[in-house]
C-alpha cells in the first residue's frame, strides 16, 4: 500500500516506510511504541478474543430463543430441546452478517479517518495525544479481517447500500482512487473509465428511481462514488472534534442495532399448517418446532404452542412475512435494489415464486380451542402453554359450503 504523498498519510507501524535506515523523529518513535504495544496487547488477548468469537454467538443464540419463544420459559425450553446448535449458529450467521459487517465497515472507515486526522493534528492537541477509541480499535484490525468484512459486505448488503462501500473503502485505505498506483496518467484514466462504467451500470436505475419518486435510492446510487474521490486524507481539526462525537455515537448506535437484530431475528421459517378440525380446515400460522411420530409441534405466530396430531395435518406451506415485502421498486439491471447480491443471484437461478393462497388468509387467529377432526386424530390435542388472549375475538370459520350451485337469490 502506498501513501498519498500529496496528503501526507503516514504508514502504520510495521510498514516498511518506518523500518528504513533514516533516523526516526521522536514523535514517530512514540507512535511506533504506541502501535507496537497495542499489537502486543492484542496478541495477549488472543485467547479472550476467540472465547468471545465462540461465546458471543452462543449467548446471542440463547437470547434469541428466549425472544422467539415469546418470553415463555417452557416454550424457551421446548425450543432449546428441539433446535440444533449448528442450525442456531447458521441461522445467526445468515441473519446477523449484514448488520455486523455494517458496524465493522463503519468502524474501519471512521477509525482510519480519525487516525490520520489525529496524526496530522498539531503538537499538543488533545486529538493527537489521545486518539479516539474508534481510531485505536480500527488501527488494531488485521488486514485479513478488513478484506473479509468488505467481501462479506459486498455479498450480503442490499444493492443500494453497495455504492457506499466505495467511499468506505477509500476512507479505510486512506488512498485516493487516482493515487492507487504511481503511474499518474494511467490511474486517473482508469478511474474515469471505472466511473463511466459505474454510471452506465446504474444510470437507468438512477433515472427510474428519480422518476418513480424514490429519490433517496437515486441519491444513494449516484452520489457515493463522487464522495469517494474526496474522502481520503485528514479532516480539519475543529471539524474532526465534532465528527468524532457524531461518528462514534453513530457506530455505538449501529452496535446496539446489531445486538437487537441478533436477538430478534427469526430462527425458524414461517409455515402455515392446515389442520382438519370438526369445524373444517383451519390454517395455523407459525413455526414448526418438531415433528415426531405422533404430533407436529407448532409455535404459533400469535403466541402459544399447538401440538397437532399428525393425522389432522392436511398440508404445510412455506410463507413469507410482511417484513420481506420491499419498500422500493427500483432495479439495477433487473436486480432489485433491496436484494443482496447473493439473494439476487439466487433469484435469477430460481426465478419463479408461488404465493400459496393459504398464506394470504392465514393471518386470522385460529379458533380456540382447536379441535382436530376426531376421525383423523386419535390422540388428544394438547395446548401448552395456554396462548395469550387474542386482541380480537377469534372467528369460527363458517361451516364449509360445498363448491357447487348456490341458490339464486330472489
Amino acid at each position, binding site marked *: 500500500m502506498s*501513501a498519498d504523498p*500529496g*496528503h*501526507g498519510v*503516514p504508514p502504520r507501524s510495521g*510498514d*516498511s*516506510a*518506518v523500518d*528504513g535506515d*533514516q533516523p526516526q*523523529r521522536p514523535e*514517530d518513535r512514540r507512535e511506533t511504541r504506541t502501535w507496537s504495544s497495542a499489537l502486543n496487547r492484542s496478541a495477549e488477548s488472543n485467547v479472550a478474543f476467540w472465547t468471545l468469537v465462540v461465546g458471543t454467538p452462543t449467548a446471542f443464540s440463547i437470547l434469541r430463543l428466549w425472544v422467539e419463544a415469546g418470553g415463555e420459559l417452557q416454550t424457551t425450553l421446548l425450543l432449546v430441546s428441539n433446535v440444533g446448535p449448528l442450525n442456531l449458529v447458521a441461522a445467526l450467521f445468515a441473519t446477523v452478517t449484514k448488520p455486523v459487517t455494517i458496524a465493522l465497515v*463503519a468502524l474501519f472507515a471512521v477509525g482510519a479517518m480519525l487516525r490520520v486526522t489525529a496524526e*496530522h493534528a498539531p503538537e499538543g492537541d488533545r486529538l493527537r495525544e489521545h486518539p479516539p477509541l474508534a481510531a485505536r480499535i480500527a488501527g488494531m484490525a488485521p488486514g485479513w479481517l478488513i478484506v473479509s468484512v468488505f467481501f462479506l459486505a459486498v455479498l450480503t448488503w442490499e444493492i443500494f*447500500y453497495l455504492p*457506499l462501500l466505495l*467511499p468506505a473503502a477509500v476512507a479505510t485505505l486512506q488512498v485516493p482512487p487516482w493515487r492507487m498506483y504511481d503511474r499518474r496518467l494511467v490511474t486517473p484514466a482508469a478511474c474515469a473509465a471505472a466511473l463511466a462504467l459505474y454510471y452506465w451500470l446504474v444510470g437507468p436505475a438512477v433515472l427510474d428511481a428519480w422518476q418513480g419518486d424514490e429519490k*433517496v*435510492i437515486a*441519491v444513494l446510487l449516484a452520489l*457515493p462514488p463522487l*464522495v469517494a*474521490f*474526496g*474522502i481520503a*486524507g*485528514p*479532516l*480539519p481539526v475543529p*471539524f474532526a472534534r465534532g*465528527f468524532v462525537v457524531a461518528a462514534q455515537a*453513530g457506530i455505538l448506535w449501529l452496535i446496539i442495532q446489531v445486538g437487537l437484530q441478533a436477538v430478534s431475528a427469526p430462527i425458524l421459517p414461517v409455515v402455515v399448517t392446515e389442520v382438519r378440525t370438526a369445524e373444517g380446515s383451519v390454517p395455523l400460522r407459525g413455526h414448526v418446532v418438531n415433528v415426531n411420530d405422533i404430533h407436529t409441534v407448532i409455535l404459533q405466530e400469535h403466541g402459544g404452542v399447538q401440538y397437532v396430531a399428525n393425522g389432522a395435518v392436511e398440508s404445510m406451506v412455506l410463507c413469507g412475512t410482511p417484513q420481506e*415485502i*420491499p*419498500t*422500493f*421498486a427500483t432495479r439495477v439491471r*433487473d436486480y*432489485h435494489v433491496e*436484494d443482496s447480491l447473493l*439473494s*439476487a443471484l439466487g*433469484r435469477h437461478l430460481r*426465478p*419463479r*415464486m408461488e*404465493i400459496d*393462497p*393459504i398464506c*394470504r*388468509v392465514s393471518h*386470522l387467529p385460529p379458533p380456540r380451542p382447536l379441535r382436530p377432526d376426531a376421525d383423523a386424530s386419535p390422540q388428544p390435542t394438547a395446548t401448552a402453554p395456554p396462548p395469550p388472549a387474542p386482541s380480537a375475538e377469534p*372467528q369460527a370459520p*363458517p361451516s364449509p359450503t360445498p*363448491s*357447487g350451485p*348456490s341458490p*339464486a*337469490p330472489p
Partner: protein
Amino acid sequence: MRQLATEGTSRPSRRRTALTAVSATLMLVLVGAVACTQDAKPDETVESLRAGSPTLRDKTRWRIVVRHSLPLLGEQDKRTGEYKGFDIEIAKAVAAELGFDESKIDWVRFSTNDERLTLLQNGTADMTVATLSITDEREKLVDFAGPYLLVPQAVLLSKRRTKTLDTIADLRAKNVRVCALIGSTSAKALETKGIVPEHVNNHDKCMDGMRSGRYDAYSTDLTILLGFLSNKADFDTFEISDLAIADTVERIGIGLPNNDENLRKLVSYILERWRTGPKENSPWLRAYDRTIGPLLDLKYRSQPLVDNPPRLADYDSKVPRQ
C-alpha cells in the same frame, strides 16, 4: 517508501482538508439516508389493501357470481356439477391470488342479467365474473376492475338466412325478428342502428328462440355466440355474420362491491401483473387457450390494458422480470 513517510507527515493544504470535511459530511448524510430507509414502509402492499378492504377482511370463503349455461365462458357440467369456461378460469385465478383456492369458492348463480349487479349491491356476492361489460351506468352501481376481455358485438344468423340478411338494412325489416338481452350493449347498439330487437332476460331464451325459428337473428358478444357454436348441432345450423352492429368493442370487467377501492385496486393489480408478467405463467393466457382461444381470431389473444392499475408491493416484488 522513506520518501513517502517523510511526505506523509507534511501538512495537507487547507483546501484539501476542507474537501475531506465536505466528503465526510456527505458520507454522514448518505448513511443517515440509509438509516431512514430502514423504517420506511411501502406505500401500498397487497397485504395492506387486503387488510383495508371491508369485503376481504375476515373472509374465509369467496362468493363469485358466474354464468352457468354459457358454453366456453361459464357453464356448469350437468353431470359433475363442476364449473368451467373462460370466466370461471379467470374467477378461480383471481380468487386464488386473493387467498381463496377452489375449495373456498362459493359459486353464485343468477337468473337475470341485472342480478349480476344486484347480488353485489345487496352483499350476497363478493365478485362478479360473468361477461359483465364496463359501462358508465354500471360504474355508478358497482366497482369494476379490468377490462380482462375486449369483445365486439356480433350477430348470429341461421345459415339459411345469411344471404337474405347481409346488411343492417335487412335487419330493420319488420318481418325480421332480432333477439337481444334487456339492457345489454347489443340491444342499445341495435337501437342506434334503427333495429328494434325483441328483449329477453337471458341468453338461453334467445338461443332457444333461434333453434325454434322464433327469431331470425340474435345479437350479443362475439364470445357468447362462439360458446353456443361449440355445440355441434348449433354449429351446423347457425353462423356468425360479418355485420358490424356496434362501432366499439365491449370491455368486459370484473364487478366488485361499490366503494371498496382497496379491493378494486387489488384485482386491478392482479390483472395487470398477469398482463405484464412472463407469458408462460399468465393465468389469462392459460384460460384463453383452454377455452375461447381456439375459436377466436389470433388478434384477440392478448390481454387488454387494465384501467388505472396501482403499483403495489408484494412478497414476489423482487422476482426478476426477465
